[in-house]
């Protein structure tokens, strides 16, 4: 509101100022407003990033700095002891460390690849063709964006039990194929591809499969990458402790969260290791996001819901 008041004054006093400064500043932008925006972003930016920075510092603190009083925010003598301790604890577990890595990579890779294929194939059909039931189905997808895992958890468990998939990789992998968010984003992005491309291919006698595989799929690479990032995050951030019990089948995030233990019985002796574990858990999705950021924003530009 500061910006609004200030701008009204200058525009009342004369248009010349606006004209002269247009070369440097965008029109309709007051200096007061800019300062206000920078101020807000800096204050809230600190609020958003502070806990993560704090945690990273905590992970590099030697034991005597973790328990110092009054507590320090920043580490003074950084050490990698906590991180190596984390891996020592993991390697002492009777399941070898590489097995956790294999499980994570296998579940994430197969789950994501299957989701990409199945969702892009279906999204292609709904986006590029008009056939009976296609609009209705997409309406259901939009509503299904709101079904969270808690609403469906109990029946899902019963269904997985019936299929005999409890305590197998498939209990995590197959349901991930059908995530509505991926289908939704893919379809919205495919809508931005000009129909004329598809029409031209049809006239040339290309089959639906050929149009999908050769024309549409190469054009939606940003969407594929975005959906991939979301799928990896979903698989990484939800340790599936409900459906996988066997230690040999558990993923790395689940194994680390077991070491961290219950947040309400904090193991004081492992305070540094806990911080290191949390840091590993949060760095992986953040790194993936950073590498894919520009493609994600390209895809999200088409995410609007039309009613």
């Amino acid at each position, binding site marked *: 509101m500061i910006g609004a008041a200030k701008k009204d004054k200058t525009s009342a006093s004369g248009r010349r100022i606006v004209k002269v400064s247009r070369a440097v500043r965008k029109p309709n932008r007051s200096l007061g407003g800019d300062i206000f925006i920078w101020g807000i*972003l800096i204050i809230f*930016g600190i609020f*958003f990033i502070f806990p993560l920075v704090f945690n990273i510092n905590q992970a590099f603190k030697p034991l005597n700095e973790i328990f110092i009083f009054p507590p320090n925010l920043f580490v003074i003598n950084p050490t990698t002891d906590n991180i190596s301790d984390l891996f020592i604890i993991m390697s002492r577990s009777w399941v070898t460390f590489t097995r956790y890595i294999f499980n994570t990579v296998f579940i994430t890779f197969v789950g994501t690849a299957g989701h990409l294929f199945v969702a892009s194939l279906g999204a292609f059909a709904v986006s590029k063709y008009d056939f009976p039931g296609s609009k209705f189905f997409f309406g259901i997808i939009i509503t299904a964006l*709101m*079904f969270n895992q808690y609403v469906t958890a109990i*029946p899902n468990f019963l269904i997985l039990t019936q299929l005999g998939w409890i305590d197998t990789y498939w209990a995590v992998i197959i*349901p991930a194929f059908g995530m*509505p968010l991926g289908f939704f984003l893919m379809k919205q992005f495919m809508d931005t591809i000009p129909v004329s491309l598809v029409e031209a291919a049809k006239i040339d006698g290309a089959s639906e499969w050929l149009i999908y595989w050769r024309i549409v799929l190469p054009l939606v690479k940003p969407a594929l990458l975005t959906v991939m990032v979301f799928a990896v995050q979903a698989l990484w951030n939800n340790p599936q402790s409900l459906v996988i019990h066997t230690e040999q089948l558990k993923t790395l995030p689940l194994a680390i969260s077991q070491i961290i233990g219950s947040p309400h019985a904090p193991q004081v002796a492992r305070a540094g290791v806990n911080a290191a574990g949390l840091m590993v858990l949060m760095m992986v999705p953040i790194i993936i996001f950073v590498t894919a950021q520009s493609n994600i924003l390209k895809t999200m530009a088409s*995410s609007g819901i039309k009613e």
Partner: protein
Amino acid sequence: MEGTNFQRYLARKKAMSAYTWNEVKKHKMLYLFLFPFLLIFATFTLAPVGISLGLSFTYFNVLEPPRWIGFTNYLNLFLSDDIFIIALRNTIILATITGPVGFMAAFLFAWFINELPRFIRAFVTLVFYAPTIAGSAYLVWLLIFSGDSMGHLNAYLMRAGIINSPILWLTNPDYMMYVIIIVVLWMSLGAGFLAFIAGLSTIDEALYEAGLVDGVRNRWQELWFITLPNMQGMLLFGAVMAITSSFAVGEVTQNLAGFPSTDYEVHTIVNHLVDYGAMRFEMGYASAIATILFISMIYAKRIVSSFIGKIGR
């Protein structure tokens, strides 16, 4: 005339269904394309909602087959389960605060970031979005809000002389709800935030130039008359995402404030659902809770989309 009209109606109906059937046959390849996704989506997303609705009318403890008991679960929930009423109240408080505030904050931050010079936008976006994707990193708030005098916030406040004795942030009912709201807002800018950032950058520059000619005086007017009406689709998507996350608060309260929390002060519907579904194995009762959660989300979306339809008018 009546008869002929009716006959004409029948004929048209027949032609229509024949046409539809032809269309279906013509596009059978596309149904094949859609089939794998449809099958998995129906099995693990649609069917569970239906099953949950069905189970909510039964007594079901997993060991014995479900027994039909009509509306008893719902009656018990609303008439004799005091904790459910508390959970309902808490969920409504959390959803009506973190939902709209989180949604508006996500939009405002996205809009502010869009005003920044290009080179710094990607970095600032990451700063604001990192808590959303950082998963269980919110557990670090346990250290900050730790209740003894060694807790970081307590230590700083005591050294600054603002408080004399440590505050039990996570176990004192006076503060718990505020702490949870702060943490939930911190970690839930969500996919809507990305959609806003992306959407803002795609609005045609020519629209703003036209607005300048038509007498738009400042960026706030620009926002209301040009930006918002052009982003209704994104806003609705963001709203759907905000509703989903604000009604699903449960893991955070469980891990920060304990389970159950003091006096059930931050006990949410999701906590109640987990209590009956995963600990007491009263699946019928838990399904009734899930159904109520589901219905309230659908209604929240209805209300929100009617609001969003009015923007810029």
